[in-house]
């Protein structure tokens, strides 16, 4: 299972801060996020970390991976 950890507004929109998703094959992480997070495409910037490393939406994930999605904040 892909372990997805959500932060801030993304956790708010999903209603959960942690989700597990089973993928049958290597899947672009953006695809998973689009399906999971309502209005995801309206955010023109996000920070995606796969196993702690900054990644793009095209990066492929398998059931061994941990993904974190953070919003791009702008500070107080």
């Amino acid at each position, binding site marked *: 299972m892909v372990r997805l950890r959500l932060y801030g507004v993304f956790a708010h929109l999903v209603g959960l801060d942690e989700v597990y998703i089973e993928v049958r094959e290597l899947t672009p992480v953006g695809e998973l996020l689009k399906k999971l997070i309502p209005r995801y495409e309206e955010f023109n910037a996000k920070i995606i970390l796969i196993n702690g490393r900054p*990644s793009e939406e095209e990066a492929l994930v398998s059931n061994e991976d941990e993904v974190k999605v953070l919003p791009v904040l*702008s500070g*107080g």
Partner: protein
Amino acid sequence: MKGWWGKILRVNLSSGTIRVHEYSPEDALNFVGGRGLAVKILWDEVKGVDPLGPGNKLVFACGPFNGLPTPSGGKMVVASKSPLTGGYGDGNLGTMASVHLRKAGYDALVVEGASRKPVYIYVEDDNVSILSAEGLWGKSTFDTEKILKEAHGRDVGVLSIGPGGENLVKFAVVISQEGRSGGRPGIGAVMGSKKLKAVVVRGTKEIPVADKEALTKLSQEAYKAILNSPAYAFWRRQGTMAAVEWCNENSALPVRNFSDGIFEFSRSIDGYTMEGMKVGQRGCPYCNMICGNVVLDAEARGSELDYENVALLGSNLGIGKLNEVAVLNRLADELGLDTISLGGVIGFVMEAKEKKLVKDDEAPEFGDFKKARELVVNIAYRRTELGKIAAEGVMRMSEFLGGKEFAMHVKGLEVSGYNCFAYPAMALAYGTSSIGAHHKEAWVIAWEIGTAPIEGEKRKSVEYRVTYGLEKAAKVVELQRIRGGMYEALTACRLPWVEVGLSIEYYPRLLEAITGVRYSWEDLYKVADRIYTLIRAYWVREFNGKWDRTMDYPPIRWFSEGLKKGPLKGQHLDKEKYDVLLSEYYRLRGWDGRGIPKKETLRELNLEYVIPELEKYVTLE
């Protein structure tokens, strides 16, 4: 002119004279307002003076947005020559005083001279009085505002200082509405030095607008877009407090005087904990996404929390209980002290105690809320040897006691809530921010992480590496132009754009509806560049030309030490690579290798008159 009154109210507290000064439409067009108007006035009129002497001037500056229904447009710039840094100093706060000053018929208020006894200024349209504040002197900002509203009615804007400003604490601020705060570099102390306790304003005039219909329509559209943003609901829940978790995840939280970036108790001071304690919400005038989250603190008082307050007075002090952090924050607001610098100063004291540079019994160690609380009060009243020296700020403390290697400031202004061991672009933002270390102007850290270079196949990327691509300097300039330039001139809050994605195109369109003047993005960038270069020229002049690039360096700690734990353990900045970034920043700004504006740049920005003045102190390239 539409949109601008073209009028500045001038009050001289030495002579008691009050006059209205008309400034030129050309200055309005070139500087727009707010910070732009403030730096123009300070350049022209405040030269070589003691910041706490009668020669300094207080500028309360608005822009064409203020007093009108513009999204989050209830803001005001407060500026002066800074007693903390010795250079240009300003702040920005949301306040009804901004709305009322503009409705009273003025774009700015300039206070000159000094009173011998405590006074406050009362403005009601054309009627301006200097009234005795002897019954208010010594009172907290909260009580002061309450009493003034009892005297003058609730439909006024009030700006006040607390004991911090009265006692000339170097990082005393101006407070309004129990928690709106501005003027980090000691603008509150300048007010105190003039014995000016408060400013009370009521305005009833209609501000001349070029196209009222367009303004109304655009405003309504913008307010609606804000409400419909996917980020809106969560923003109303946590506001800026969402940054505690975010920064901790990214090893960017200031922990124990910035010695590390991850805090073991971050969860107990984060936005989720705050939500569990929230009793109310407050905000600035004309804002429909208010973010002042009020909690009950450990002394059962209301305390309005922001990320910066909690980072600097919580994790930075090793204090992991939000109700205690909230006490320190509320005290700071009541006493009129900047929460960021206060946290920086106490954090320094705690580390100095650990390293035995400070031996006072009363000096807190990391995590000691009780002693920290006492120290806050001692600072505000300049009591005890420790309180007196802490009131001078981190830079002077380290000069006096030692500990420069852990003195977290730039140009004398204490670093705000982002720990930059692994973030060179953010470090550059701090190094080049116009008032000293402040994040407002170019908060690049999320961009820096999000665009970290990805090598290898897209399947798995490499670890985040600290890189110094020249595009980082360009990004800092880009953000400074918008956040430190445009927003500070209009004057409006940047958070609708930054936090809920309001289209930035609204701003020039609103400006045109108000003034009838169309500013292209190039025009707006030029205004911003003019402001930045004039501010830099001001620093150089006030430092008598003794200026070099080391003034734009971030704190040594980020180079000489590394993060102590977490996924970015060991990361730190590289001085040579930072220098390359800084040189690129100067190139983009048209400044020389010392960080001093070149003649050509001054000419291009219609600042030709600066050249002969500046050449008295330094040779220009």
